[in-house]
Every structure is written in C-alpha cells, then in structure tokens.
C-alpha cells in the first residue's frame, strides 16, 4: 500500500461540495449525520440498559451535566476547542486525499513544545501568547511534515508513517518530560507550569481558545473554497493526474497540506496546554487526536460543519464523566457511541435508506402520485 501512486488515492472527500446538490439535497446531507448520531445513541442505550441502568436516565444525566448550567457549558467549550482544531487537521488532509491519522502525535509534539516555550521564557503577554502558540503550531507542522515529505518524495503511505510518528511523539514527549524538561523536585514526570503571561484568558464566560478555533474554522472554509491554493488542494484530492496535467505541483501540495494539517493539530495541543492543562503531563491529552478523525468524517470534510461535530463530541465527552459518577456507567460508552456514529455516517446504511426514500418520492412525483 505504501508504494501506490498518489494518483490512486481518492478518499471521496475532496469534492469542494461533497455529495451536496448532485446526489443528495441539502436536507439529506444534514439528515445523514443527525440520523446516524440518533441511531448510535439508541444502540449505546441498549449497552447501557444491559449494564442495569435506564438509558433515558443515563442520557438525561449526561446531557444535563454538559448543557444544564453555565459550568457545564464552559467545560463543553473547553473540551470542544482542541476537538475543532484536530477535526480541521483531519479535514485538510482529506481534501488532498491524505488520511492523517497522526493528529495525536502532532498534538503531543506541540503540547510539549508549547509547555517549554511557556515556562522557559519570561516575556510580556502580548508577545508570549502568540510566541507559545506559534511555537506549538511549528512543532506540530514539523512533525507532520516528516510524513508529508515521505509521502510526496518517497511515496510512503502516510497512514503507516503517521501512526508510527504518534507512538514516537508520545515516547519522546514522555522522555522530555521525565529528563530535560522535568519540573525539579517532583516525583512525577511533568514540566513546570507555564508562566502567567502564556496563559490563554477567558473573555467573560467564553475561553479565548474557543473563539480562536471558531475563527480558524471560518478562515479554513474560505481558504479551501475561495482561494487558488484551496482550489489546488481540492484538485489534487479529486484527481492528481489532472492536477499534474494542469501544472499543479502535486508533491508541493501534499507537503504543504500535511504541514497545515500538522499546524492545526499543533494549535489544538497548544491551546489545550495554554488554556487548560498549564503544563505538559504525559497522557493528559490522550484521545483528542483520534476524536478528530471521527469529527472530520462526521462533518464530511467540511470545515464549517466541523464546529457542530466537534461540539457534539465535546458534549458527550464532558457528560461522560458525570455519567460514571452518578450511574456507574463507564465513560468509555462514549467511545462506542462515537464508533457507531462513524460507522453509520461512513457506511452507506443510513445514506442509502434516506436516498432511497427520496428517490421513491421523486419517482412517485414523476408519476403524478405524490406531486
């Protein structure tokens, strides 16, 4: 699989308007993810039922904990912030036909880099925040570029290299936090706290990181659909041979897309470090990168749709903690629900049903029955 021509990779998500309009109407494009989530919640409910808890009670606890009060909403926003960014990282990859499973590693590389930039320097806030954020993004971009360059110039599958780079990043960060960057006099491996000047503030009740993530989503939506570079991305993703024929450098586009993807993942790690954790501690951000894959597929590789998809995952993850506390249900039930959602979205089960209903209706209206 590593040696196939990039021309042969088409994940089907590179269409600037994926499956909207042409085959499905707008309502169907929205209905597929919504129905998928509901189905997944239903199946998750069966699992909860077999654990001896009323599923309705469990879901009530889950959603109330996340959406019931200001405190819950704040936690949802905090949780969703890195998820929006990791989701976008996967989206950018999908647009050029790359499957970046290495978001977790890029985020980890950025988190340790940001922590270092945050505690090692003493700068005024206006410089320190952009510096630490930018340094984290750079770490993420550099880490992803290894896979990007290998893909573009040696034709090595990014799927394998990014997975391997995940494990390497986690070990490397673990080493850095236990030796050179370790907080002195502490038994556990972790870096010192970042300086106050590097902490992302909260505007009223809204964390600044959340606002940044929203702006980045909108910017990326504009970038992918309205700019020349975005056009190049989509062309390479749709048909690399045609792109090459049109004079687009496929290699350069692959490297650039992977670097941007890594920078977005890195931003996720940086924002998490600067806004919530305040230092690097191994395994504190586990899972954020993998949720990004689910979110990107749920959003059908659309940067704007990434926002609600990430918030949904954020709500489930936030509520899961209370679920365990109040009902004893393992929070991992959320992993099962998300996996099922992904299955229903990506597999043609739901879409085929909705599509068929729609086709029948059209057929009937042609016959003058349903019109």
């Amino acid at each position: 699989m590593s040696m196939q021509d990039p021309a042969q990779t088409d994940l089907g998500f590179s269409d600037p308007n994926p499956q909207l309009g042409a085959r499905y109407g707008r309502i169907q494009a929205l209905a597929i993810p919504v129905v998928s989530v509901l189905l997944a919640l239903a199946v998750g409910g069966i699992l909860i039922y077999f654990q001896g808890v009323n599923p309705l009670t469990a879901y009530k606890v889950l959603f109330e904990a996340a959406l019931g009060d200001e405190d819950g909403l704040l936690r949802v926003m905090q949780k969703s912030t890195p998820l929006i960014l990791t989701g976008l990282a996967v989206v950018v990859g999908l647009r050029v036909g790359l499957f970046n499973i290495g978001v977790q590693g890029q985020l980890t590389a950025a988190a340790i880099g940001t922590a270092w930039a945050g505690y090692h320097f003493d700068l005024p806030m206006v410089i320190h925040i952009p510096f630490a954020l930018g340094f984290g993004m750079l770490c993420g971009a550099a880490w992803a570029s290894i896979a990007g360059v290998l893909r573009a110039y040696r034709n090595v599958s990014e799927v394998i290299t990014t997975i391997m780079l995940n494990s390497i990043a986690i070990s490397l960060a673990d080493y850095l936090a236990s030796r050179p960057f370790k907080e002195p006099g502490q038994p556990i491996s972790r870096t010192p706290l970042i300086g106050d000047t590097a902490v992302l503030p909260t505007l009223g009740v809204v964390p600044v990181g959340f606002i940044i993530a929203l702006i980045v989503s909108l910017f990326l939506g504009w970038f992918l659909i309205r700019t020349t570079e975005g056009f190049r991305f989509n062309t390479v993703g749709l048909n690399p041979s045609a792109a090459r024929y049109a004079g687009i450098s496929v290699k350069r586009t692959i490297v650039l897309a992977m670097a941007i993807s890594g920078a977005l993942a890195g931003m996720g790690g940086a924002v998490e470090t600067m806004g919530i954790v305040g230092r690097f501690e191994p395994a504190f951000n586990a899972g954020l990168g993998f949720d990004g894959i689910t979110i990107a597929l749920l959003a059908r590789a659309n940067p704007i749709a990434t926002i609600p998809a990430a918030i949904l995952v954020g709500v489930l993850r936030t509520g899961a903690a209370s679920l365990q506390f109040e009902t004893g249900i393992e929070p991992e039930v959320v992993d099962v629900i998300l996996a099922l959602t992904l299955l229903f979205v990506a597999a043609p089960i739901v879409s085929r049903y909705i599509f068929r209903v729609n086709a029948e209706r059209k057929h009937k209206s042609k016959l003058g029955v349903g019109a």
Partner: protein
Amino acid sequence: MRARWAWTLTVIVLVGIMFSYTQDEIKTTSVLSFSLRYAVPLIIAAMVGLICERSGVINIGIEGQLLISAFAGFFGAALTGSLILGTLFGIGTGLIMGALFAVGAVSWKMDQIIAGTIINIIATGLTSFFYVQGQVLPGNTPIVAIPFLKDLPLVGPVLFNNGLFTYAAILIVVILQIMLFFTIWGLRTRAVGEKPSAAETSGINVQRTRFVNVTFAGGLAGVAGAYLSLEAAGTFERGFTAGRGFTALAIMIFGAWNPVGAFAAALFFGLTQGVASQLQADQVVEIPPQFINMLPYVMTIVLLALVAGRVRPPAAVGKPYEKD
C-alpha cells in the same frame, strides 16, 4: 536489485549471530528467543495484511482485529477456565471482525482506509467499555519441546522449544507461501488483487473471493490476538496491542508481499528489539527506556523510506471492484 540487498543483509545478520554465539552462548540464545517471541504476532499479523492486499484490499483494521481478539481470548479463557476455549473465542472474534470489515470494504465498497479505521475505533471502544480488572488466566500455555531437534546447538533451544503459537506462526507462513504460488486459490487471489476485471472475465467471482479472503484473514488476526494475551503477555490491558497491527503492514511491505519475505523481515525486526534490550540490560550503553520503546516505530519509518519504490504492491490494491 532488491533481492541482492536483502541477501546481503541476511548474510551480515547470520555472521553476526554466529560470532556472538562463539562469544557468549547463553546470551545469544536468550536474545534470539526474545526476538522470535517478539516477532510471532508480527509474523501472523503480516500474513493477515498480505492475504488482504494480495486480494486487493488494504486492511488497516488489523490493529483493531488484534486488540478485540486478544480481549476475547483473554476473557474467554479467564471466564471458562480453559485456554483452548479462550483461543477459540479469540479466533472466532477475529473471524467476526474480518467479516465485518469485509462487509464494509468489499460488499459496501466503502473507502477501505475508512472501513479499517472504523474497525480500529470500534475495537478500542468495545474493549475499553467491557474491560474489567482482576481477571486471571487459568494457567500458562504449555512449552512444547520437539525431540532431537531441540538438542541442536543454537537453533534447537531457539526454534524447537516454544509455545504452540510459535510453531503455528511458522506453519502459517510455509502453508501460505505454498498456497499463494502453487494452488488454484493462490492464482485466483493474485488475479483478483492484480487485475480484477480480467479475473472476472475468466469466471472468478471477484467480490466473493475478496470477501472470503478478508474474513479468513480476520481469523488469522484472531490467532495473533490470542497469542498476545494468552501466551506472550498472559494478561490484557486497554490498548495493549500498541500499534503492532500497523507495524505488521510495514513488515509485509519489506517482505515485498511475500510470506517468507515478511517472515524474515519480522525476525529482523525482533532481532533489533532483542539486541537493544540486551544492550540496555547489560548497561553497555545508557539508553532511556523511552528510546527502546520508540525503536520499532523509528525502524518502521526508516525502512519504509529505504524500501519504497523498490517493491511493487498488488496493482488493484485499495480499489473497490466495480463491474465494467
């Protein structure tokens, strides 16, 4: 070109082992035994990837298939009190996961990478959700020494004094090598992976061949998973397959989609890990443990970068089959 490169490496490694054996028999034997044990799940998992890709299907869900069969094997054995039943649970679960992947990647013609990712995410979710602490296995898997052969110098204790899974792995490689290149099944499988439209014209049912092979490969993943929890680790932890399913794909590529080649690649992989661990244990070099952990992943990337372009995957790999 590539064959010469591979032979040179093999000769260097063998000479190195011989030299080391003359210096320290016990240590050499223990390093080689470690290497083989490390390689066993990689060998079997690489065969899973190989069967799938030879049929034209990229299976990146091997990791998930390993994880969930290791889970089923462990808890099956712990709850029934029988290692044999546990192994069967593991293999059965592998077959189910193989069939599930085949439904998505073959029948529904989903993007194969996404179908594999779903398998991985489902496996992580289910094994985490149903995980319970404090279960123990009813016993250890037996070590079976083969009479006479076990007394050979060096190869005896390394190759012929092992658990059943290790022999199974070697047997699977040999059988698969023969089946792939000398039987009708092999010819059909390769045809389906190289040029499915031609295969269909000559009367081979492409979809069915792919479905059966991918499901069967899932059963093999079940064997590898059962080995991990029942023989290698004797326990199960969340996410403990630690990327072996992906490393196996890299090993399949180094082996140029050839069972014996992948076998050799997996052994080489195990050997580097064994040597590194021994160097650390002897305190010859001071390597932080994190760097030992990183070694197989770094090697995967470096070797992929070196080998890339010298080997050719099956032509139709990754493409769902559409009738013309």
